[in-house]
């Protein structure tokens, strides 16, 4: 059951009504049952992975909380981390790694021409990357004393399986989620409206924007060797917006659905293409729940920015390469492209760190330029292009195809004006341009003053007109028979 389906909207409505009809102390039971039902609908066998992650983390968390011996606590933490991250590694990466190792061994003569390494042949369960990271936050936070371990298995199971976030996050922290299970507030009109607004906007971004851009993106990336260079350029730009609208659309629906049920999830996107640097993009605006996970559970334990010189550079690159590894998934295949994408973004951070003193000095020398709108816009544009460039490695089927795309675009640059003039732009291109313009207009307005505030202050007629416009855009322009969410495949 996808978020962009009538079935999900009916399911959500039924769960919401049931949730508020039940006495407060039983509400979490309904949510847990609904979450397991929702997850099992995708593939019943996947429940095994979800239960394994839940039980292992709960057991280890219990041991961490109730053991007084430091060694036992540490052993429980290590066991929990090894089990969950090991499960993730085995299911998601082992077959790819074995294939690559076999290739290397054959090339080195250590394996015969027909020789191979054994494979697991497992289908990675949807959402594993997200809930495995969620339980890591619980184990580490319980160990470091940032939260007390949860003694109620049912409530903990709800934290892992909560249906709005189980497939693609946000990667919620146990310490912020679990207290909300106990609260279970009654229905609140403002929260319901806010939740519905987010669900509507999320659906709009997914089925109207992302899924209308998808065919143009696929046209480029599915045949990089033969697509006209203009298609490749258009595809590369549009993919940046497709993946943003697809993933942030999912997140908005997840947060909106949670809000209907009285839960607040982490903010995951904050108008990322308005970032003025790649550091700002990654630390404050894009997939915030994952970025903060890497910050809290990898970067800081490695020493973060407290260490100096080369060690800090190493930490930054480690975070981005591991992030690339985490993203390697099913949708575009497990491949080296994700690692290149991660390393490229790491290299951007290196360049940012290395040139930061220079920019500070330049800014101090030219304060008026630094404060000008034109300089601001230039930085936003430059950052966007760096990010869009890296997305090519993310989206292309292989690193080789990514380089093919870049080589063909580069080769066509001299003839680009003529190519653009002769290119048969059609309704799909104009629709895509209009949708992106609309998206950016909304984001700029939201950046200046939150849209929710603007809506709340607007007259009823304006609010309703906007709601109807969004709903009928969904009905008329939405691609409801299209794809699943990209990030559900990681």
């Amino acid at each position, binding site marked *: 059951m996808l978020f962009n389906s009538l079935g999900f909207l009916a399911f959500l409505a039924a769960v919401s009504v049931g949730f508020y009809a039940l006495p407060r102390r039983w509400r979490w039971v309904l949510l847990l049952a609904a979450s397991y039902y929702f997850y099992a609908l995708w593939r019943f066998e996947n429940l095994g992975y979800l239960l394994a992650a839940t039980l292992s983390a709960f057991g280890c968390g219990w041991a961490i909380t109730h053991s007084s011996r430091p060694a036992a606590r540490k052993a429980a933490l290590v066991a929990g981390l090894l089990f969950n991250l090991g499960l993730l590694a085995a299911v998601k990466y082992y077959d790819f790694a074995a294939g690559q190792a076999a290739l290397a061994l054959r090339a080195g003569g250590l394996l015969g021409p027909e020789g191979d390494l054994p494979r697991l042949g497992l289908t990675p369960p949807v959402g594993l990357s997200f809930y495995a990271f969620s339980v890591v936050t619980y184990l580490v936070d319980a160990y470091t004393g940032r939260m007390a371990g949860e003694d109620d298995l049912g409530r903990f199971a709800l934290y892992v399986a909560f249906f709005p976030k189980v497939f693609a996050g946000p990667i919620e922290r146990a310490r912020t989620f679990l207290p909300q299970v106990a609260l279970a507030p009654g*229905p609140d*009109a403002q929260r319901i409206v806010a939740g519905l607004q987010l669900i509507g906007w999320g659906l709009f971004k997914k089925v109207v924007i992302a899924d209308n851009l998808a065919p143009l993106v696929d046209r480029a990336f599915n045949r990089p060797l033969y697509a006209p260079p203009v298609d490749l350029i258009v595809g590369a730009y549009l993919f940046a917006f497709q993946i943003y609208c697809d993933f942030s659309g999912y997140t908005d629906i997840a947060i909106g659905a949670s809000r209907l049920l009285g839960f607040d999830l982490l903010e995951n996107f904050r108008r990322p293409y308005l970032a003025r640097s790649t550091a700002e993009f990654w630390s404050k605006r894009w997939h915030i729940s994952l970025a903060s996970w890497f910050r809290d559970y990898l970067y800081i334990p490695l020493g973060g920015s407290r260490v100096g010189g080369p060690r800090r550079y190493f930490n930054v690159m480690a975070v981005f390469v591991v992030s690339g590894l985490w993203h390697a998934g099913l949708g575009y295949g497990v491949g080296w492209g994700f690692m290149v994408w991660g390393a490229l973004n790491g290299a951007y951070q290196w360049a940012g760190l290395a040139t930061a003193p220079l920019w500070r000095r330049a800014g101090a020398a030219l304060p008026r330029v630094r404060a000008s709108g034109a300089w601001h816009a230039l930085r936003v544009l430059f950052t966007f292009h760096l990010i869009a460039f890296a997305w090519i490695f993310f989206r292309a089927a292989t690193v080789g195809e990514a380089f093919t795309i870049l080589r063909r675009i580069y080769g066509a640059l001299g003839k680009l004006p003529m190519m653009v003039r002769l290119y048969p732009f059609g309704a799909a291109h104009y629709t895509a341009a209009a949708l992106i313009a609309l998206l950016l207009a909304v984001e700029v307005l939201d950046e200046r003053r939150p849209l929710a505030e603007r809506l709340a202050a607007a007259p009823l007629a304006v609010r309703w007109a906007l709601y*109807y416009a969004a709903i*009928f855009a969904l*009905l*008329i322009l939405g691609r*409801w*028979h299209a794809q699943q969410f990209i990030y559900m495949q990681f």
Partner: protein
Amino acid sequence: MRRFARSAAAFVALGLVLYAAVYGAAEWLVYRTGDANPFYKIATLPERRVDWVILGASHAMPLDFAEFNATMERETDKRIVNLAATGAGVLYNRFVLEQFLESHEAGAVLFVLDSFSFYDRQWNEGRFSDVKLIRRTPLSGSLARRLLAYGLAHGVPLTAALDYLSGFSKINNEERFERDVWEGEAKFERVFRFSQVQDRQRIAYLYPFEQVDAATFERYWAQFADFVAFAKARGLGLVVVKTPIPAHIGAMIPGEADFDARVAAFLAAQGVPFHDFSGVGNDTSYFFDTDHLNRKGLTLFFEQRLKPILAGIPAPAAPRP
């Protein structure tokens, strides 16, 4: 919360009014861009009575490409309406015929038979859910009732009736401003360059199974028998034909000889004429894709095989003693 509920109810009510307006506009577009959809043809057919109704799947559709139907009418002096639809099996064709007879009369039915539709639900019950068909089907109370009845009697997905009645696929039609023609019509004049890869893909698409599911086949065979009985009961003449297909494609179809033999025996017992033209006039230059006749092939097929059949109207069949 009570104020909120009242406000929400007003919002929904006004939304429904707006929805009705959008639905009306989408329905208007269905008539403006309509062409190939069988129900559109039924809704806009000026005559109450026709001599021939042509039914079948995509192999029957070229008979209505460009001006070909008008040519056939002129040459045979018969009024012909072609209600074939892509991938339509017996159940869907029966539905179309029933809907046609709700408002019109016919002398006879020419049923263009394909074996693939006997092997899978997607060509029968599944066709009713195809948004490409639903979004071009004009709104009709009798059609909606029949769709619901088929849902209860034959297991046609009720979501198809829901989609049809709500008008969602029409409102959401991304090709709303384009004429409703099957993409094959644009290739009608072409000669196909065959390749083994495409041949294999086509057969794998139409016959994806490794082994025939006997229960499924018998289910659609029984519906075929019902279809014959229905035509007879309504006093319609019935002729069943198979159109030419390239010999090498025919040879790739699993179990086709057995299927043909069973059809021939059954129809002979029913007194229904059966003409298997699959192996005649099937030079590869007569096709615009792997198995659909182009203009040259269709002209030859019509002149040599179909014209004599369409020129007469068979009497309703009676079982042979």
